[in-house]
């Protein structure tokens, strides 16, 4: 772990306790049940949001890639956790870090929700710039919220963002390899007027 990484992490985490409402808000933002489900909800919304049949078809394909990218992210995180068991900041720096979250037991790198957020943003890249940047912002917010509460380093978040983009790109390849089977699945859903 380099000094720069520690300094950023300790600076952000050092804000804990300065202002109660900020701690309160960040704990919700860092949680597992607000921003991570939003990524999945955005994918569902995308299925229906295209205004022409052609646009909807493209967006539905993007939604498929988004689901694949989430699955790939979880798999890649599982593999990486086995390769590099990076200790969480609250374990590595017990005297300096204020833990404001549950003591997560899996390795610190990569920041799981950030990887998922950037994977979804990459998969939905062409849907809308506003959506893309919102998803990236949410991925960074949940990542840095977890730096604030003492369970990630800043580099876990940055590395996870790069990993998420890479996985979205790989999801695009996989989609093309399985083309047109996934298109046919869309056609079946369309036959029932649900896609």
């Amino acid at each position, binding site marked *: 772990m380099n000094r720069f990484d520690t300094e950023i992490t300790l600076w952000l985490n050092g804000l804990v306790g300065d202002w109660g409402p900020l701690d309160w808000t960040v704990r*919700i933002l860092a949680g*597992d049940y607000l921003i991570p489900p939003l990524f999945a909800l955005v994918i569902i919304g995308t299925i229906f949001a295209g205004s022409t049949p052609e646009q909807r078809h493209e967006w539905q394909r993007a939604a498929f890639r988004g689901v694949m990218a989430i699955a790939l992210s979880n798999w890649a995180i599982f593999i990486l956790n086995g390769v590099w068991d990076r200790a969480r900041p609250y374990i590595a720096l017990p005297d300096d870090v204020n833990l404001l979250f549950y003591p997560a037991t899996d390795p610190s790198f990569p920041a799981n929700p950030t990887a998922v957020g950037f994977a979804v943003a990459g998969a939905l890249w062409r849907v809308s710039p506003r959506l893309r940047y919102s998803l990236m912002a949410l991925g960074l917010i949940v990542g840095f919220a977890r730096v604030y509460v003492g369970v990630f380093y800043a580099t876990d978040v940055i590395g996870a963002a790069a990993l998420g983009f890479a996985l979205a790109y790989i999801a695009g390849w996989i989609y093309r390899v399985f083309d047109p089977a996934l298109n046919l699945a869309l056609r079946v859903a369309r036959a*029932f007027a649900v896609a």
Partner: protein
Amino acid sequence: MTPHDIGNLFLRDYLIAMYVATLGVVQIGASYGGLRGMLFLPSPRAARWFGAVLMVVAFAYFFTVPLWAAGPWGPEATDAAAGGVSPGVIGRDGLTVVWDTAGWSGLGGAHNLNDVDGGLSGGSQGIWFPLAAGLALISTFLISSVVNRGLREIDYSRNIFWGVELLKNASWAAAVRPSLAAARADWRQIVRGEFDGDHEWGGIRMIVNRWRSR
């Protein structure tokens, strides 16, 4: 209370929240797509706002449940022990807490519960979220079919095998039969069309075309 009991409590609230949030996001998506037959309200703009409200309500419900429902988010057991309250469980933020309701100040971290202590792991969210979302989608098609039962304009002059495109002017109940009939009539042509043309990455397409050319 065991982590299993805590997990069940969590799961109930999570499923309700994700069900309602999915209802909301589908309303927002369908309003942008102009799919009147899927909307719960006549105006797309109103439906979009209604969808946003549903999403806010869903998450507000999930995060405020600890205010009125007892769970692993009460005060720390060490503090409470002085007042003679019951022994604690491992709960919010990995602390030993009393099974009790939370106050506003404790609400921020009330749901921050490790999966080994009864929170939902990423894997179980991956199972339960699609279930809640699937139920919400089914509900959307059924409820909107009742609300929009007067919408029955199917344009037979166009290629109607466009799935939800039909829901721009018809309810799902009115659209599903013509859509299925069109799919039944055209499925061979559709499948053939998908496999025609070349794609350097199309693995399945490549295998099928090689088998076809024998």
